[in-house]
C-alpha cells in the first residue's frame, strides 16, 4: 500500500509539475506581452510629453499669444490672486498674503 501511494505521489508530482510549468509559461507570456505594451505606451507617453513640454514652453506660449490672443491675455495683478483651500470637502477661499511695509 505504501509503495502504491509513493507511486501515486510521484505521478501526482509529475502531473503537478507539468501543470505548473504550463501555467507559468502562460503567465510568462502574459507578463511579456504586458511589458511590451507598457514599453510601447511609455514610449508614446514620453514622446507626447516632450511635444507638450516644447509647445507649452514660455517661448512658445508667448509666440502663440502674439499670434492668436494679441490683446486678450493681460497680466494679472498678484494682489487679485486668491488661494483655494480644500478641507474635508469644504472649499475655503483665502486672500493672498501680501507684504505691506
Amino acid at each position, binding site marked *: 500500500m505504501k509503495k502504491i501511494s509513493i507511486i501515486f505521489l510521484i505521478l501526482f*508530482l509529475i502531473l503537478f509539475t507539468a501543470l505548473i510549468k504550463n501555467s507559468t509559461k502562460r503567465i510568462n507570456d502574459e507578463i511579456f506581452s504586458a511589458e511590451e505594451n507598457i514599453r510601447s505606451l511609455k514610449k508614446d507617453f514620453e514622446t507626447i510629453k*516632450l511635444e507638450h*513640454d516644447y509647445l507649452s514652453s514660455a517661448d512658445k506660449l508667448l509666440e502663440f499669444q502674439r499670434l492668436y490672443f494679441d490683446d486678450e491675455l493681460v497680466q494679472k495683478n498678484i494682489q487679485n490672486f486668491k488661494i483655494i483651500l480644500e478641507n474635508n470637502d469644504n472649499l475655503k477661499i483665502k486672500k493672498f498674503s501680501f507684504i505691506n511695509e
Partner: protein
Amino acid sequence: MNKDDLRIIIENQESDFSYQKSKSHLNITFNRISFIFFAFFIVFLIYSIHLIHLGSREVKIFDSKNINQITNKLYRADIVDRNQKYLVKTINSIDIGISPSKIIEEKKLLFNLRYIFPDKDYKEVKNRIKKGKFFYFEKKVSEENYEKLMKLGDKSIEPRDNLIRIYPQKNLFSHIIGQIDDDNNGISGLEKSLDDELKNSQVSIELTVDKDIQYLIRSELVRFNDIFNTKGSAAILMDVRNGEILSLISLPDFDPNKRAQITDKNFINRVTKGVYEFGSVFKTFTLAAAFDENIIEPLTELTDLPKSLTCAGFPIREYDNKIPSNLTAEQILIRSGNIGSVRIGQKVGEEKFQLFLSKIGVLDKIDFDIEEVGKPIEFNWGKCPLATASFGHGITTTLLQLAKAYSIIVNGGYNIHPKLIKNNDLKKREKILNDDVSKKILPILRKIVTTKEGTASLANVKGYEIGGKTGTAQKSIAGNYSKKKINSFVSVFPTSEPKFVLALMLDEPKTNKDYIYHYRDGSNMKYKGTPFNTAGWTAVEVVGQIIEKIGPILATKYSEVY
C-alpha cells in the same frame, strides 16, 4: 503401490521442493516495480531539474535585461527640471547601412530601395557599393521605413542603433546641461559631471531649476544686454534655506542641439567659472564679520573718517565725496563708504576677516555639481590687502560663491551647499555664524533699496521686500585696472523672512541715452538716459525688472502663503 510409483511421488515431492524457484520469481516481480519506480523517479528528477533550470533562467533573463540596458552605451537618462519638464530627452533612432559584400542581386536591391526612398541619389549609392566598403545609406529612418526595409529581407541592409539627444529648451540651460560628443560622452556641464550616472540611471535626473523662471530671467538679461551693450552677463537665483538653484544663466549662451565646438572664451560660464572682482558687494561681508565677532553694532558711530587714505603708496578714496565724516556702521554700508569699510575691516582684524570669508566660502574653490568652476585668485593678506579687501578691491570670487555667501549671511548663519541636482536628503544644517548677523544685516540691506542714500532704489519692487548691495568694480586686464567695469547687485527677498538670493552681474555695461527709468520711490517720476555705467543704474534696474516678472511665480509656487 509399487516401488516405481513411490519414486514418482518422490519426484513430485522434489517438484514441490522447487517451490523455492517460484518464490525467486516473485522477487523478480518486486525488482520490476523498483525499476519502474526508479524510472519514474528519474523522470521526476529530470522534470524537477528542468523546472529549477526554468526558474533560474527567468532570473537570468531579467538580470541580463537590466545589464543590457545599464551597460548599453546607447543609453543616456533624461534630465528634467523641478516640475518634471524635459530639459534633455534621449530618443533612440536607427541608421541604415549597406554592406556591399553581402549583396546578392544589386539591381533588385536598388529597385527596392528606390521604391522606399525615391529621393535618394542612386548614382552615388551605386558608386559607394562599387567601393565595396560598408556605408550608411540613410540615417535616423522612420519606423515605417524601417519596417519596409526589414521586410525586404536583404542581408546587405544592416540596421545600426543610434542615440539622439534632444534639448527642447534650446539655449536656456546650455551652461548647466553642457554638451556631449559624437560618442555620447559628456564634454561639459552636467552631461560631463554626471556622465556615468546618466549612462546607468534608470530614471530621469531631476534638477532644482525651474524652466519658466529661467526663461524669464534670461529674456530680461538678453534685453538688457542690448540696452547696456554688455560683453556678457550672468544671474543666479538661489533658495537661501537649502542652496537649491532655481535659475543659473550666463550670456552669451549656445544651443546644445547644434553640437558646435565652442572655443570663444566669451562663452565662459560667468556664474561658476568666471572669477571677478565684484567691488562693494564685499562691504556686506566686512560688516557681517564685525557683527559675527560682536565688535560693532549697526548704530555704532565711526567718527572723523577721512576723505582718502594712502596704503602702500596707493590712494583709497570715497566714491562719493559728499559722504559725511561721521557715520554709523549701517550708514557706511547704505552709502557704500570705502573709508568706513576699511575702518570696520581694521577693527575686525586680518585673521578674523580671513577666517570669516573662508567660513562663508568666498576664498576657496567651491565644490559644485558641474566641473566648470573657477578658483578665486589667491589673496596675499597683509595690512594694505586687508584695507582693500574690506571694500572689495583686489579680492576675487565667482558669482556662485557670492550668492552662497549672501545666503549664509541672511539665512540665520546656516551653511549651505549650492546644488543643481534635486535630492531630498535632509541633513542637519550646520550653524556657522551668530544668530545676530542676519538680524542686524537684513534691515540694512533693505535700507539700501528703500532710502534715498541707498544705491539700489530702482530695485524697490512693491510687495517683495527686496534688500541688497551693489558693486561696481574696475576690470583688471593683464594686471592693470581698466576703465571697463563689472557691475553687480546681490539682492535678497523678502528681507523679513529671506527665501531667495538673486545675484546678477553685467560685464562691461555702457550707458544708454535712450533708456527710460521708472522710479520706484512712489513719485512716478521718469528719467531718460543712463547717467553712469555703475551698478545702481544698470544691475539694479535689471534685478528690479527681473523680480517684477518672476515674483508672482515665486510667490505662488515656492512660498508658504498661509
